[in-house]
């Protein structure tokens, strides 16, 4: 299987703290991969390094967008918006919606990097701009509907229930047309029913859109049911990787989660 994301020896230091230490990770085309680990293990830091929010101290990141043959591109040194334009989209652990914009507008923002009308075109409303604008609205509606946010279309994002806000984060990321979706704890704060819906939704995203997914999650039930492969992180170090079955029975992982000293 072709890898859409390939990370080699990624490290990140914050002053004296090594938050990530020589991490290797790859995500195959159409795969759902989970990244788990105790609090403070460095999972979010990993996302931030990939998406250009932090500059990694060491290591290489390569992408190979879906449907683009086997061309590999290096991702380092790009700004977050450039990374998104390359086709990686993320959600945030602590929800970061545009609070005073409507649900639809939030999703429309996601279309920004796939459209190009500038100031002049906005002022003079050329036909090309109107067509593009129509396209943005149409695509955004489709995504809103797909993510089950139809009833909230014109609500302000801040007025949405928690679960819907998490889904809106995914909707917004989807609007950027990614080949790889990075989800940071999408089920946090959801009730079991909502989590089940999310499970279904993520499967649907992969099936219908062919988007690969890298997922950080603490809800083990969701992780075990969704993932093809799992990486386990502790203190910035990869301590295990494998299928859900292998991970479930891995003594090192169990120890890390129970908070004991690791001697393996």
């Amino acid at each position, binding site marked *: 299987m072709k890898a859409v994301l390939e990370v080699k020896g990624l490290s990140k230091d914050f002053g004296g703290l090594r938050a990530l230490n020589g991490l290797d990770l790859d995500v195959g085309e159409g795969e759902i991969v989970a990244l788990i680990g105790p609090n403070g293990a460095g999972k979010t830091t990993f996302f931030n390094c990939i*998406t250009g*929010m932090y500059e990694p101290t060491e290591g290489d990141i390569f992408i190979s967008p879906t449907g683009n043959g086997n061309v590999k591109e290096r991702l380092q040194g790009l*700004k*977050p*918006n450039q990374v*998104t*334009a390359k086709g990686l*989209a*993320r959600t*945030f652990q602590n929800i*970061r*919606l*545009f*609070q*005073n*914009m*409507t649900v*639809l*507008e939030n999703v*429309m*923002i*996601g*279309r*920004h*990097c*796939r*459209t190009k*009308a*500038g*100031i002049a*075109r*906005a*002022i003079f*409303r050329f036909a090309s*701009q109107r067509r*593009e*604008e*129509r396209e*943005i*609205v*149409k695509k955004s*509606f*489709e995504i*809103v*509907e*797909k993510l089950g946010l*139809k009833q909230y*279309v*014109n*609500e*302000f994002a801040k*007025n949405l229930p928690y679960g819907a806000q998490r889904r809106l984060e995914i909707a*917004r*990321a989807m609007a*950027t047309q990614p080949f790889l979706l990075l989800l940071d704890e999408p089920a946090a704060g959801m009730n079991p029913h909502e989590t089940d819906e999310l499970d279904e939704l993520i499967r649907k995203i992969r099936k219908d859109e062919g988007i690969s997914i890298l997922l950080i999650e603490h809800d083990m039930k969701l992780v075990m049911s969704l993932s093809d492969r799992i990486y386990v992180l502790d203190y910035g170090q990869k301590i295990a990787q494998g299928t859900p079955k292998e991970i479930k029975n891995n003594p090192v992982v169990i120890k890390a989660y129970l908070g004991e000293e690791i001697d393996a």
Partner: protein
Amino acid sequence: MNLFPELRKSFIASLWFMFLTFPIMVIRVNTIENIVEWRWMNLVFVGIGSFFLSWLWRYLLSRKEMGVNKKTDDQDRTSLVSRLMKNKQLIIPAAALLAIFTIIFPHIFSTYQTSIMITALIYVMLGLGLNIVVGLAGLLDLGYVAFYAVGAYAYGLLNYHFGLGFWTALPVGAALGALFGILLGFPVLRLRGDYLAIVTLGFGEIIRLILENWNEFSFGPSGIANIPRPSFFGMDLSIQWATVYIYYIVIGICCITIVIVGRLQDSRIGRAWIALREDEIACQAMGIDKARTKLNAFALGATWAGMAGVVFAAKTTFINPASFTIWESIIILCIVVLGGMGSVVGVVSGALVLILLPEYLRAFSEYRLLIFGAILIFMMVFRPGGIVSDVRRVYRFESSAMDDKPQEYS
């Protein structure tokens, strides 16, 4: 509301006020008769006054809280003004009436009144320009008046040295405004909030100090006089007619500005500005180029200040650095904040209220800033969205299979 503790709090507040104002309100040294006057009645007035004000304040606050508890969704609580604006039967005749009034205004009122109106309209332009920077993009710019000065001096100096006319100076002033907007934009790209406010404040003062001290360039504090009013197809007009003419020019520019800002707001760029205001990090993660979006906002905002500056120079025929102090920036900022950040109607009404009221309430002009301050605090607490809060466009949802433009009623 629990009555007793509330009353007690107000009582304590009034005692505190009586204590604070004691030295200035009660004691007076009468230097003629060399005695100290004790004006105890003043103390009573202060006490009673502050008691009631404090109680009223707390009462309004508690009502506001109750209101929030009652209804959590803001959409039903849109302001009266915006609800009125949605009513088609009302809006068309009202707009027609307003248009007629605007057109005949200079003919039914005196030149003096027209001139005041021109000033107010210049502030409408300034407010709409700053609204792009502060209201939409959320960049607190306290040096906005610098671009206004750039426009005014562009016309003054170009006319003095090269005899350039108003209509040539207008686009040049706008372009210079934009250029300075970008010049200021570059160094402050990384800044936000308070830091940005401080740097822009400094920038505004730098421009003013340069104009004040560089005598060879800008004629220092004495300024530039005899700037020509716009000529009407080569004809020089009398003061009266020139005022009317400028009035129509400003009305024209304002209308164009309103259309342009409205269109920008509802475009890809405008949404990017709002997203930048809402959350810078998420905005970048969604693929928006932060630097470029900020520079756009600064440049466009400054463009209108530049134009307003040219119009201002043409109207007053005399400019000097004293017209471009930090207070101007603050008044323009008040217009935007008071009117309603991000709302065009709000900014227009904010400008008219803040500029026209002091003109007609001359008696209070000494207290102008005091009243501004009080109004601003009041607004921040009770109507943080401004007079007309920003209403987002509403899209009607049709099935995803639609081909047509979704119909919107906004």
